[in-house]
């Protein structure tokens, strides 16, 4: 019902009431009239008025007749006089005639008649003689009375006619009015009747609609696949659809009117259900009601308990609370879920078994393979003739290929089964790149290629990435580049494409100036076992899996890899990765060769805000063999100083924010780890006053930029003796640097050994050492996850013995560290240590080789 309809109805109702009121009033008037008409306050006025004249005439007659001298005549006269008199008095006194005196014509006439009667009364009442005597006069008077009487009569007629007509008129008007209003009322009532009929019709229509809706709803309820059960607040079932019959087993007749708990809820839940219901009815607190889908146990008629998914809503109606629940038997679903779980577990178990198998197999395959290759090594060094050497080389080539195949296949399989999980750690890309180029340096030299690493400044220093996997990819790419390029240039570069909160999108490219890849081959190269022909004598040691593996790894990291033409004519492989910017300060990782506990002469905190300066200084320090930790600003410097004890702090002075002087002061104050650590200031310009102020703030020395290597070394040398006991081993100095190599060999020891054993045996010993060192190096560079460390450690032990005897102190110390690490943890030693040992192994071996060649 719209508002307008409402107003209309209200207005109409008001109108009806008004009309009824009006009609009532009019009918009241009518009733009054009827009452009035029921009585009259006048007799026949016309008659009385005309009768006046008659009585007058009779009197006049009597007067004329009284001339006869008879007693009866006089009586008759008197009688007539009296009659006339009484008639006149009636006219005067009676109510009905009250109108008359107001009329002026009447007044005059009335006065005359009054006068006549007044005069007449004494005569009439007097003695007869007097009466007789007065007769003539009387007669005259009577005659004169004719006019007034007539006048009165006529006037009266007029007046009463008017009155009568007016009354009639009033009545007619009243009747008309009443009729009209009644007519109006009838119309109004007719309209009201019509409206009611219409309303009735609409109500019927609405009822039909409602019925239709109800039927639809009933149909929905009946055909619903889910059980629909409606219960009232006492828990008695009111509505129970056919689906409920199927699910719960109770027929509709059995269910309706019964308490729901007894029918459908397992016995053990009765108490909880009742309590929950009670709580809800009392407090309105909803735990299951109106909370969406809930899984519970329900009870079938047969007593079987089965799982259901249900949803309950609640409504408050006129008749109290009702609870509507939709229930679904989820036995099948549960079972399916359970089956799925079982299948999944089995699949996982299968996968695990597979990977275990792989691990075992890898070791089983690789161990004899290593044996073959190792023996081949020894064979090669055992003095073969040219033919034998050729055969040995062939064997080696094949053996290497086989090893690569096995490694690649195992890698691939591990990636496929997801057994090779990524283990990201904070990595400095610069260091990683350096390492890669270094490991490829032999191949590059052979092909006459120049390799360059370029990292743009906007690449965050520390990124969270799995260094081994990334290295694997980059090694593959760079290796390929070297394969397909001769006398060219290979550029390994990294740029930052995009940088948001904590994540940087990095593009790493390997661009070469080699033969390139034809456009149609670009997609194919990534496919497994695809190797493109090249016109050069290629190194047939590829399996065609390299790029496939690389792509899988990149994809596992969430990145993309593709190949495109480089401007320089060769091929450019480009990787895009989104990497998290690691917030932790970098502990120099696999890329760099410095480690915090181990063979650093000095652990140095380098504070420098300029990227290039930092890079250069770090390189210089590392060349000296020191362990470097970087801080980009004073703030970082202070926090790092608080975290770790350094042997030396190199503090750049001019930095934004907290400058070097401030940072130095902060570090000096308090009882932090580095409160007494020597600090050296680095600055572009230093006036004597400034140097003095540096000194006052705890920086004993100042290096001016650009820093010369000698100056740096001098300063470092000053502090080097303050190494302290925490470092193990190494009575040697730097293990890396142009003069360092010599220090790997203690010539005095060597000389003694040589003298003791004699030339031949000495040589043989050296050669054996070389072999062992080579083998161990290989082992150390291997993926530690592919084998157990025990054999390697045993080898290391053996080599340590040789190194000790022969006089390779650096190597010896490192090998002991290796052993100790394994003894402590039972696991492979850390990446950094292994890399270091491997390097020293090689260097030492190289030197021994040199030595052998010299002699």
């Amino acid at each position, binding site marked *: 019902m719209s508002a307008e309809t409402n107003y209309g109805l209200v207005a109409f109702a008001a109108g009806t009431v008004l009309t009824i009121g009006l009609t009532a009033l009019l009918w009241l008037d009518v009733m009054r009239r009827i009452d009035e008409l029921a009585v009259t306050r*006048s007799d*026949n006025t016309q008659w009385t008025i005309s009768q006046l004249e008659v009585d007058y005439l009779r009197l006049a007659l009597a007067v004329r007749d009284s001339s006869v001298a008879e007693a009866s005549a006089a009586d008759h006269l008197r009688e007539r006089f009296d009659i006339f008199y009484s008639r006149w008095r009636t006219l005067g006194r009676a109510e009905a005639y009250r109108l008359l005196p107001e009329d002026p014509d009447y007044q005059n006439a009335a006065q005359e008649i009054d006068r006549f009667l007044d005069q007449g009364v004494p005569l009439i009442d007097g003695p007869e003689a007097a009466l007789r005597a007065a007769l003539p006069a009387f007669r005259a008077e009577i005659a004169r009375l004719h006019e007034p009487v007539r006048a009165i009569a006529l006037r009266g007629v007029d007046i009463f006619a008017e009155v009568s007509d007016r009354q009639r008129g009033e009545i007619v008007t009243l009747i008309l009015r009443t009729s009209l209003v009644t007519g109006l009322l009838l119309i109004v009532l007719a309209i009201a009747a019509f409206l009611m009929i219409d309303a009735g019709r609409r109500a019927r229509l609405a009822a039909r609609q409602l019925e239709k809706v109800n039927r639809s709803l009933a149909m929905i309820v009946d055909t619903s696949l889910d059980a629909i059960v409606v219960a009232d607040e006492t828990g008695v079932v009111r509505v129970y659809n056919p689906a409920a019959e199927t699910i719960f087993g109770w027929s509709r007749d059995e269910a309706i009117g019964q308490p729901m708990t007894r029918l459908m809820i397992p016995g053990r839940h009765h108490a909880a259900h009742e309590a929950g219901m009670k709580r809800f009815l009392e407090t309105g607190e909803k735990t299951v009601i109106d909370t969406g889908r809930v899984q519970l146990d329900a009870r079938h008629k047969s007593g079987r308990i089965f799982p259901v998914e249900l949803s309950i809503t609640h409504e408050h109606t006129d008749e109290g609370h009702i609870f509507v629940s939709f229930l679904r038997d989820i036995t099948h679903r549960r079972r399916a879920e359970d089956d799925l779980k079982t299948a999944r577990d089995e699949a996982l178990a299968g996968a695990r078994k597979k990977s275990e198998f792989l691990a075992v197999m890898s070791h089983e395959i690789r161990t004899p393979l290593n044996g073959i290759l190792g023996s081949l090594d020894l064979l090669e060094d055992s003095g073969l003739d040219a033919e034998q050497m050729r055969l040995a080389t062939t064997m080696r080539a094949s053996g290497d290929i086989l090893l690569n195949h096995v490694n690649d296949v195992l890698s691939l399989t591990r990636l496929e089964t997801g057994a090779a999980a990524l283990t990201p750690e904070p990595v400095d890309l610069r260091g990683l790149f350096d390492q890669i180029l270094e490991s490829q340096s032999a191949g590059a030299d052979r092909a006459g290629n120049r390799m360059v690493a370029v990292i743009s400044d906007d690449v965050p220093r520390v990124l969270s990435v799995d260094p081994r996997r990334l290295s694997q990819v980059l090694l593959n790419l760079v290796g390929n580049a070297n394969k397909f390029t001769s006398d060219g240039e290979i550029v390994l570069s990294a740029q930052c494409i995009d940088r948001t909160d904590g994540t940087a999108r990095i593009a790493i490219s390997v661009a070469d100036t080699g033969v390139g890849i034809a456009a149609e081959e670009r997609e194919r190269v990534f496919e497994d076992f695809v190797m493109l022909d090249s016109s050069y004598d290629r190194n047939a040691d590829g399996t065609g899996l390299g790029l496939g593996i690389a792509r899988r790894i990149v994809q596992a990291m969430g990145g993309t890899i593709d190949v495109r033409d480089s401007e320089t004519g060769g091929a450019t492989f480009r990787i895009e990765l989104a990497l998290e910017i690691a917030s932790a300060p970098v502990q120099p990782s696999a890329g760099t060769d410095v480690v915090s506990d181990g063979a650093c002469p000095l652990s140095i905190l380098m504070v420098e805000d300029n990227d290039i300066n930092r890079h250069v200084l770090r390189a210089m320090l590392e060349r000296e063999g020191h362990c470097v930790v970087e801080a980009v600003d004073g703030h970082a410097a202070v926090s790092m100083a608080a975290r770790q004890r350094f042997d030396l702090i190199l503090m750049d002075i001019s930095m934004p924010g907290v400058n070097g002087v401030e940072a130095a002061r902060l570090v000096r104050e308090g009882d932090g780890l580095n409160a007494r650590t020597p600090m050296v200031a680095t600055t572009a310009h230093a006036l004597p006053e400034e140097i003095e102020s540096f000194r006052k703030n705890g920086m004993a020395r100042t290096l001016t930029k650009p820093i010369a290597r000698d100056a740096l070394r001098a300063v470092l040398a000053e502090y080097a003796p303050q190494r302290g006991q925490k470092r193990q081993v190494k009575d040697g100095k730097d293990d890396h640097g142009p003069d360092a190599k010599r220090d790997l060999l203690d010539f005095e020891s060597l000389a003694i050994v040589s003298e003791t054993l004699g030339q031949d045996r000495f040589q043989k010993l050296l050669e054996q050492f070389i072999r062992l060192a080579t083998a161990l190096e290989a082992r150390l560079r291997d993926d530690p996850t592919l084998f157990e460390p025990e054999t390697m450690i045993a080898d290391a032990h053996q080599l340590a013995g040789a190194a000790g005897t022969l006089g390779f102190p650096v190597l010896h110390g490192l090998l002991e560290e290796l052993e100790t690490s394994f003894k402590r943890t039972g696991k492979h030693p850390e990446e950094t240590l292994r890399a270091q040992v491997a390097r020293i192994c090689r260097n030492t071996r190289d030197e021994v080789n040199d030595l052998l060649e010299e002699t």
Partner: protein
Amino acid sequence: MMILLGRTAAAAILGVNVVMTHAASADHLPEPQGKILLTVIGAISHANRQDGAAVFDRSLLEDIGTERVQTTTIWTQGIQTFTGVPLDALLDTVGAEGDTLRAVALNDYAIEISASDPVQGEAIIAYELGGAPMSVRDKGPLWIIYPYDSSPDYQTEQIYARSIWQLVSIEVHP
């Protein structure tokens, strides 16, 4: 035949003062001594004149019975007390056998009254107004009066027409 109900009903009516005196029932009416006021002729069974008429003087009328009616009338001012003989009683006295009465006045005004009309029950033939006899000028000596105030039934033209004054005779017709 005669309306006796009217007399019983009269007790509940406002403004009517009823004084009952027992009429002396007589088969043969006594003869009048004084001036004859009313002559009743026609179908009557009791007469006191040779021609079969019943004539009444003042005292004869009083003997029949007295009733007082206190009422206003359209011809008088204020509430007046009329004393007279109930018409029914008179008709009983004369043994009227007819229903239609023709009342005639001095000036020959005549009116027909239906005696059985229930309205008639309360009619009196008044001979006294306010305790004094009525002269001709006062519409006497006899005036048929109804208790007008007691009911709207008495306030109709017909009743006013029947309120004949200067009454001289009643003719009883069958």
